[in-house]
């Protein structure tokens, strides 16, 4: 049951991200809900599930674009692993650690993906506007997504 719920949650996160970027962008900017979902799943889930969520959400992000395939999957897998490592030292359920982690990991992920893109496709995908603003939008989105995931985990045992 919880497996199907997680599939549903995965698709809902992807659809929510797609809908937001289609209808609610401001100056072409929107929080990266896939990133936020990967981060929250990494905070709440066990080690294998955390990395798996990062990988599959990254795969979804890869499917949305036409750039190299597997770039986001690798980035979010590594990001999920680093969150799993961090939560042994910090209480990631708190608001402040989530904000800091969302900000820092957004930038790190962007740099990492840019490095991959330059290495594999010789394309620079990073826009300055997105680089400067999106991490803050992600930081705002992460606590909200976390509460949603946390509520579902408590009620249904998903994640």
């Amino acid at each position: 049951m919880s497996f199907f719920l997680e599939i549903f949650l995965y698709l809902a996160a992807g659809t929510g991200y797609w809908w937001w970027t289609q209808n609610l962008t401001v100056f072409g900017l929107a929080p990266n809900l896939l990133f936020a979902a990967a981060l929250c799943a990494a905070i709440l889930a066990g080690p294998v599930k955390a990395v798996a969520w990062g990988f599959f959400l990254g795969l979804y992000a890869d499917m949305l674009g036409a750039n190299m395939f597997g770039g986001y999957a690798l980035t979010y897998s590594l990001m999920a692993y680093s969150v799993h490592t961090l939560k042994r030292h910090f209480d990631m359920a708190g608001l402040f650690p989530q904000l800091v982690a969302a900000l820092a990991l957004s930038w790190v992920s962007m740099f990492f993906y840019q490095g991959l893109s330059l290495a594999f496709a010789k394309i620079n995908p990073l826009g300055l506007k997105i680089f400067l603003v999106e991490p803050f939008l992600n930081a705002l989105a992460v606590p909200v997504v976390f509460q949603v995931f946390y509520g579902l985990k408590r009620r249904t045992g998903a994640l």
Partner: protein
Amino acid sequence: MSREKDAANYALVFFAALSVLLLLFPASKFAHTARIAVSYSLYPSMHYGAKYGHFIRNVPTNFVSLLETDQENRALKGKVRDLEVKLRNASALVSENERLVSALRLSRSLPWTGSWARIVNKTPADWYGSFFIDKGSDDGIAVNDTVLGMQDDRAGLAGRVLEVYPKFSKVLLLTNSAASAVCAISPGGLEALVEGKGTWLLKMNYVPEEASVEAGSELLTSPGGLLFPAGISVGKVTKVYPRESFMNFITADVAPAVDVNTLKEVFVVRRNIPGDLTGRGQGEKK
């Protein structure tokens, strides 16, 4: 804790290796086409910039043509929408042009000199009382100039200029309850006073009881009136009221020759009435 750490490490190695494999091995034609199809379905855009060729590599030409046709279709739909808006605007301009051409042709045949002005402000609270026109003292408009409107290709009396500012003027409509005009009733030429009532109808007063006034009689401005040139259509009698027992004249309702509701432009006739007669200058504003 160590088991958990090991599990995390194994998971990372597995998924990282899978990602790297996906990155290293170029996608097959079918997989890349499927990916472009999914991507395009969610984000229907092909703005890949200078790397366009790179992004559509491995994708069959027919499929790319299909996507490009869809892009072209979307762009054309946008253009059609823009053109629809322009067409509506153009049809409004055409009707305005026809109206002005018709009015201008009439103005050449008018025996008075003057200029056309556009109505720029009608106040709902004073709909039948007054409005503003876009010409003022800079254009030679003066207080008490006669204002004509066009209705069914005929010039009719709309009112007179009440206040003049450098760039615009206020027109007192004949339908204003403070406005009146001395009129001659066709065909006999009997004179009567037509007054505004603040509604779309005018009221004709002081008609002798024995006068032969009936519904449909036309009223023209009288040579005896000072403010308006003679011979301008004022309106038509719609209803004649019988004499009241305490009055020695009859009254009638008059439909104005000009419908204020449809007026867009007016013709302002230069009157050059001697200031001593009208107290000109009182209405001029600086």
